[in-house]
């Protein structure tokens, strides 16, 4: 397939392809991070994760409208406000859901899976009733949708850079919160030994609620960011579920580093295969590879080896 291209052309294409892989990696991390926190720290698979993302996207949509109508001068920067609001909206809803639903199901992980699926159906219908069945168009500031020309042939999408920067920021914040802050120690204590953590005075219920809220909030931010690259509709959340779950499960339950490594592996595999094969087959092969590796390493890529 490379006949008739000059070396510099090929070089720049491979550079861009590497960059595409990095964007995909960032997208995967961003969508999986919230789920990984919830799954890793609480053992709960949140099937409504995609809907929490779309909630963030709708918040962004509403913001773009309000700002566009009432405060046009704010438009170039509204995206940051929208992301913050998306975090708050999805996070609070997450806490509400934890309080009303999830906390009764901690001993039954498979049941949370079904209950959150039910939740996702309800959220989809709420979106549909509120915003209509059609996808909505989120108007973005122009500077976000452009590209930077590095050379004549290498062009870097700004929204890709934005997603990458956002992913790094959020990962760093999550890392700081979970591993540096006092609160994070509480989360990890609860994860390792719920009874003991309760006994030493950690409010385990509160920790659970905030952890779930944090995970959902990050989903909201992800959803908000994805308005730059994807669609916003009542059922758009479902487009992400298989990829997201696989990234988390492939990364192993207990490790954020694992999630990041797994996102990297899957994204590189997918973008490489997509380049050399046609789209559908690339997807099938990526999924098959992940499933195959999971069968060989059922606990995921990164997992602490512990006495059971």
């Amino acid at each position, binding site marked *: 397939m490379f006949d008739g291209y000059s070396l510099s052309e090929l070089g720049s294409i491979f550079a861009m392809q590497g960059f595409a892989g990095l964007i995909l990696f960032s997208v995967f991390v961003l969508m999986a991070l919230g789920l990984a926190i919830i799954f890793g720290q609480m053992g709960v698979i949140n099937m409504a994760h995609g809907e929490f993302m779309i909630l963030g996207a709708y918040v962004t949509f509403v913001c773009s409208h309000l700002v566009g109508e009432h405060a046009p001068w704010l438009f170039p920067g509204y995206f940051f406000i929208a992301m913050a609001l998306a975090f708050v909206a999805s996070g609070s809803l997450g806490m509400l859901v934890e309080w009303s639903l999830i906390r009764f199901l901690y001993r039954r992980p498979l049941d949370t899976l079904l209950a959150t699926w039910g939740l996702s159906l309800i959220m989809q219908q709420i979106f549909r009733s509120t915003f209509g069945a059609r996808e909505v168009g989120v108007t973005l500031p122009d500077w976000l949708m452009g590209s930077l020309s590095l050379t004549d042939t290498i062009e870097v999408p700004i929204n890709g850079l934005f997603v990458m920067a956002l992913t790094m920021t959020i990962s760093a914040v999550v890392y700081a919160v979970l591993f540096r802050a006092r609160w994070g120690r509480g989360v990890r204590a609860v994860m390792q030994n719920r009874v003991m953590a309760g006994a030493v005075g950690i409010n385990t219920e509160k920790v659970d609620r905030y952890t779930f809220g944090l995970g959902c909030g990050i989903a909201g931010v992800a959803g908000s960011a994805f308005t730059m690259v994807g669609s916003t509709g009542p059922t758009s959340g479902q487009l992400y579920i298989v990829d997201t779950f696989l990234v988390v499960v492939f990364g192993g339950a207990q490790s954020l580093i694992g999630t990041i490594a797994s996102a990297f592996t899957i994204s590189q595999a997918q973008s490489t295969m997509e380049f050399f094969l046609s789209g559908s087959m690339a997807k099938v092969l990526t999924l098959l590879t992940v499933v195959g590796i999971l069968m060989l390493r059922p606990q995921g890529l990164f997992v*602490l*080896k*512990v*006495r*059971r």
Partner: protein
Amino acid sequence: MTNATDFLLSVEGLTVSFDGFKAVDDLSFYVDENEIRVIIGPNGAGKTTVLDLICGRTKASGGSVKFRGKELTAMREHQIVHAGVGRKFQNPSIYDDLTVFENLEISYPRGRSVWGALAFKRDAAVRERIHEIAEMIFLADHLEQRAEYLSHGQKQWLEIGMLLIQDPQLLMLDEPVAGMSVNERVKTAELLNRIIADRSVIVIEHDMKFVEDIAHKVTVLHQGKILSEGSMERVKNDPKVVEVYLGH
């Protein structure tokens, strides 16, 4: 040193590490036929891990476990059971949803393959054997009761009974009297002394009184290594043991 094959169980150079931490470190010991061996040691000494390694629940990083000359580390769990090694867990591990009778029946060593289990018939031999074991573990009157409703001590016995019905050559019991009343402990000691007639037993226990009642030989573990080994009397007087364990 005697040839390893003379022992019922010979553990040599057994090592396992979890994330760099050596839970069991180059451990060797030997168990005779018809011996009751008690393993003691402070928390985290690696006692349960040793049992896990022998029965295949945890895979060793190095070393060998030979049972009657067969290498256990290469075998899968159910094969180890078929070879004649039985294991009781620290917390009574029984099937709450099934009756005592059904608990024992599942452990009955026939129909262990899928098709065997489908074709399995509850015939006279099965019933007789279950009643015999139930008698032995003091549960003859509770056969139709759901295991969930047994007392803690009765659950411990039931699990021992589930092992006995398989007639293992080596029985490994992890804290069999934990949570038992004094009366139950006495009965359990009696039970153990009765069942070693034709097998060896490895017991992990903290209760020194109980250990003295049953132990032929005691192995003291500390940080994954053997600190001392021998008769109860000898171990008790070993200054190293006194320092790390008994003294406290």
